[in-house]
């Protein structure tokens, strides 16, 4: 398979995962119970992206000691809960991360 063909197939798969449910499901299929469970989708997906990026090293092994990302993420979370502000959350996390790796 040529590189371009492979990229096109990957693009197609990506598109189909985004498109299929929007194309197939009708709003009549929804009720309050389904809506309630679906409201947990962000809480179910985002941590699966967040946790490995914080707790795993480049090789994919769990790293707890000497891991500045853990403390930085906790600080960001606290700032986020307190301010409910997206920019403040991201920057407090980055700032504390840099503070730990460059200054401490």
């Amino acid at each position, binding site marked *: 398979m040529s590189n371009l063909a492979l990229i096109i197939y990957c693009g197609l798969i990506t598109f189909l995962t985004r498109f299929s449910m929007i194309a197939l499901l009708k709003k009549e299929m929804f009720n309050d119970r389904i809506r309630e469970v679906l409201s*947990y989708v*962000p809480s*179910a997906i*985002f941590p699966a992206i967040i946790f490995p990026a914080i707790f795993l090293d480049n090789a994919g092994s769990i790293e707890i000691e000497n891991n500045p990302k853990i403390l930085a993420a906790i600080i960001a979370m606290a700032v986020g809960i307190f301010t409910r502000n997206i920019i403040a959350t991201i920057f407090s996390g980055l700032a504390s991360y840099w503070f730990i790796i460059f200054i401490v």
Partner: protein
Amino acid sequence: MSNKSKNFFKGIKDTSPLMIPVIPFGIIFGVLAIDLGLTPLMTIAMSIIIFGGASQIIFLQLFSAGASSLVILSSVGAVNSRHLLYGTVLSEHLSDLNLTWKIIVSYLLVDQAFAVSNDHFKKNREDKDKYFHLIGGGLNCWTIWQITTIIGIYLGSIIPEKLGLTFAIPLTFLALLVNDFRKLINVIVIIVSGSIATLGYQIIPFKAYVIVAAAISLLIAFILTKFTKKNNE
């Protein structure tokens, strides 16, 4: 300003803070693709055709490791399976659109746009032009992604690796969850999902750890919400 433009610009405004981490991410993708021997044209084609940060990075990782086309395709599929859930959540609000708009909206359905438009749609159920919020947000992500890919290709590593800017990616998703840390069931779902993904990262094949973690924790949400209902009755 028409209602459609209002929604469109609100979408751009709501996604804008989330674009800050996308900038280094796009640049890193461009740099990595060129480092691994892709041509600039191929790299740009990838950002336009696939338009998904995680999929593109996985593609590069496996491609450079010499993985077969089948492994690359299935891994990209597994990484993208979370979009099935995004589509499911949003479909209720989009089912009246015609096919062309459904195709356009689907192409633009990235994590950041999903997160903000999901909130917007819930608050503006009756507004029939609300899908323009998702188009505005999605196009904002699209534009930033294409520009930063090109910057990465031609300016190379203008961002020192030592800054560890990839850490901004999990921080974005963390920022999207801050309202959920106050609710008990959400906290349980968050901890279950994160733990399964971290422990399963090495074990679950084809990088499918995200959808496996999401499916199990949604099941737990389903059980817990049922249980709390019974208690209230």
